[in-house]
């Protein structure tokens, strides 16, 4: 086994809480009666509506089309009638248009099969086209449109394809279970991605707290004859961020403002690789994903394969409902996920988890003055000074904050997590970025 590696600066060790669901096999969620499918489930321009009120759609139809360079198609997972198109709030905190579809029971998607031999013959361009048509966006959390990421720009070349099986967020086991249960499909998906990017080698990074996943992937690779390396990584948040993962695996730093391809790497999530497999071999667009439903306030924490548009409420009911009144419901992991207030919020492509947290877990506290303990600076994986940035933003000095590399902050939450004064540092960074955007517009 290779030596465990990790990134150099910053990072924290939140309690990982993986126990709750790591042994739970992926279960299925029944189809809801009404689904709400947001038109913006990816980073970049929202897709533009391709259906209107009263239209009848079939499962797998495109209901919103990618608009702009960085965008992705949106498909409906189930057939039925479009009841209305209205603005809803998505977990990220802003409102986007969404189609509300009354589901026609028994309208589920019919997979077709392409044999492995046929898939072998597809050219990289054809593969990219499939990825684009199937509306695949990164399933790690940021939901970056995959066809954009896999198309290596002219003049650049990918040396290493890094597959992100880190899943450093506490509680979440969606990727972990996927690797355990679908290692074979996953590896095939990786092979397509390798073909699209032209990467010379593939490294699969998995944190040391997932020995089963590591074993499963290594076993499947040996069985199917793939030469992909599995790189064990020390447990450290936020290793699942692509910049930290690149640093951990290759030792290289992506230049400020640059992309992984600038250091010859492409990073993608195991979930995305699985989605690519399904798109290529089963012609299935991305409209469902594995969601970890967990947290101390959930009766039976579990991993659920859920369709996009399913309300959170249904998944929580599937997991036995609340065992006690949660004080916070989170979409995604606890470090970078968003608190939601409405249990009708729909599952989206990037929803890796639904967590119901109790007061004890949240550890919220009264905000006290900064005592410049420097914990935020130590924990920042980007080498920034969160406290300084926060003070600049607090005083309205947004331009100065930008000069102090505010835009390099990716809101991983290490600073806020470790702040004993309970200062809302990440929110400060987001505020600063918002005000900078306002200034420039």
């Amino acid at each position: 086994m290779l030596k465990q590696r990790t990134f150099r600066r910053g990072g924290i060790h939140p309690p990982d809480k993986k126990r709750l669901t790591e042994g739970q096999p992926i279960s299925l969620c029944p189809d809801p009666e009404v689904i709400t499918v947001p038109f913006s489930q990816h980073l970049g321009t929202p897709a533009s509506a391709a259906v209107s009120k009263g239209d009848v759609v079939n499962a797998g139809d495109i209901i919103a089309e990618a608009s702009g360079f960085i965008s992705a198609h949106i498909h409906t997972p189930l057939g039925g009638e479009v009841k209305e198109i209205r603005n809803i709030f998505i977990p990220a905190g802003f409102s986007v248009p969404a189609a509300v579809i009354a589901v026609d029971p028994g309208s589920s998607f019919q997979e077709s099969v392409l044999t492995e031999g046929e898939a072998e013959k597809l050219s990289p361009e054809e593969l990219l086209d499939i990825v684009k048509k199937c509306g695949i966006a990164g399933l790690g959390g940021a939901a970056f449109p995959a066809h954009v990421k896999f198309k290596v720009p002219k003049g650049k070349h990918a040396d290493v394809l890094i597959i992100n099986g880190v899943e450093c967020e506490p509680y979440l086991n969606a990727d972990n279970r996927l690797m355990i249960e679908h290692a074979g499909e996953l590896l095939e998906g990786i092979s397509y991605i390798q073909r699209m990017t032209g990467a010379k080698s593939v490294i699969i990074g998995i944190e040391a707290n997932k020995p089963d996943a590591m074993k499963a992937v290594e076993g499947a690779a040996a069985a199917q004859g793939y030469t992909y390396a599995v790189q064990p990584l020390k447990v450290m948040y936020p290793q699942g961020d692509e910049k930290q993962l690149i640093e951990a695996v290759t030792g290289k730093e992506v230049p400020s403002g640059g992309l992984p391809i600038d250091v010859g790497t492409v990073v993608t999530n195991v979930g995305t690789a699985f989605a690519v497999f399904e798109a290529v071999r089963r012609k299935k667009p991305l409209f469902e994903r594995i969601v970890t439903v967990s947290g101390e306030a959930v009766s039976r924490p579990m991993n659920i394969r859920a369709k996009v548009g399913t309300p959170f409420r249904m998944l929580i009911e599937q997991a036995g409902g609340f065992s006690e009144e949660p004080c916070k419901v989170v979409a995604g992991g606890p470090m970078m996920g968003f608190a939601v207030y409405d249990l009708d919020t729909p599952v989206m492509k990037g929803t890796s988890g639904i967590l119901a947290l109790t007061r004890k877990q949240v550890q919220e506290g009264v905000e006290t003055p900064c005592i410049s303990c420097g914990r935020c600076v130590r924990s920042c994986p980007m080498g920034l000074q969160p406290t300084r940035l926060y003070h600049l933003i607090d005083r309205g000095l947004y331009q100065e904050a930008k000069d102090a590399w505010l835009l390099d902050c990716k809101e991983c939450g290490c600073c806020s997590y470790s702040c004993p004064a309970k200062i809302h540092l990440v929110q400060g960074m987001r505020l600063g970025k918002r005000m900078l955007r306002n200034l420039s517009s």
Partner: protein
Amino acid sequence: MNYIGILITYIFISNFILTQFLGLCPFIGVSKNTESAVGMGFAVTFVMSIASVVTWLIYNFVLVPFDLMYLQTIAFILVIASLVQLVEMIIQKISPPLYKALGIFLPLITTNCAVLGIALLNITNQHTILEIFTGGIAAGLGFLLAIVLMSNIRERMDGKPVPKPFKGVPAAFISGGLMALAFMAFDRALLTNLLG
């Protein structure tokens, strides 16, 4: 060794601002942000080093021969005022960027007691022209150090909930007092023990 002694004396032991109260007005007035504090510090150092030499020359080669030592105050202030103006003009001509950085502080220096102070103190304390020059630079550097430290401290205070009556000048004075308190660690004994 003597020159090092003069340097240490004026920078640490009897810092113009922290122990002698010379140059307090700019110390309080121009220390709100670090850029201007650095500019002011260098401008003062520059003027001080030249002024102490020129005044010493005037004193020894004009006032003493004619036995007019009692005119030193008038003569010195005249020289300093003209010197400052001359320096301002020269900088403006030869280096506009430097003028932009230092220029606005130069008129303030005329009435900076630190400059006249070093000229007067030099007459009693130093003897050779090189000592005078060192004294001027050292006193200026002491001023520079104090004002830059002060400006850093005051920048740190921005955004802190300083009580309203203390905001600005009072907090600066108290900071100065605390700095002086700490600088009391540097005493004469330190200098003599260190340099023998």
